[in-house]
């Protein structure tokens, strides 16, 4: 398996593990209501938010650290991926802003849990787009 394919596979595994961990934590702890009330629960979720990008950075460094592993075509792919990722994330954020504004404009405030949902959706979209480009 080529280094670039390895990186994509490991990224997918990290994304799936993170998603499963999040869903598992939410189910085990009692859902959104507990998230609002339980600081410990929120800290676990925050640790995941920081841990996932860190794990991704380590994986990228481990799979692509040897010189000569990446050739000119790989570099082109790696340069193109963030541009498409950026656009995908931008459009998803625009969608969130439009929907949340329209749904909650009467109340004048958005429930805090939507911040977590926005983060989850951004991670998922970023991962999917990155994999499809690779």
């Amino acid at each position, binding site marked *: 398996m*080529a*280094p670039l*394919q390895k990186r994509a596979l490991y990224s997918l595994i990290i994304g799936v593990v993170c998603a499963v961990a999040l869903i598992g934590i939410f189910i085990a702890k009692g859902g959104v209501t507990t998230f609002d009330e339980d600081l410990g629960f929120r800290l676990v979720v925050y640790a995941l938010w920081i841990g996932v990008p860190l794990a991704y950075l380590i994986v990228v460094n481990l799979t692509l650290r040897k010189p000569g592993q*990446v*050739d*000119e*075509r*790989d570099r082109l792919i790696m340069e193109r991926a963030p541009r498409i990722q950026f656009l995908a994330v931008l459009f998803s954020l625009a969608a969130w802003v439009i929907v949340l504004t329209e749904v909650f404009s009467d109340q004048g405030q958005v429930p805090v849990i939507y911040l977590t949902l926005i983060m989850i959706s951004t991670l998922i979209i970023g991962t999917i787009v990155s994999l499809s480009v690779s």
Partner: protein
Amino acid sequence: MRFDNGEMTQEELANRAGCTRQTIIALEQGKYVPSIELAFRIAEVFGVSLEEVFQYKESS
């Protein structure tokens, strides 16, 4: 051209030209246009001139 050079595998050509096997696959399928440098390296592996390996076809 690989087969005219001792049944050279894609892996072997990739190693000798300094690229990945995936790049050789993409080149053979016409899905990737190499840089001048890589094109010269591949021609060098086969011991022929650049034009004997790569030909320009104007896309319609």
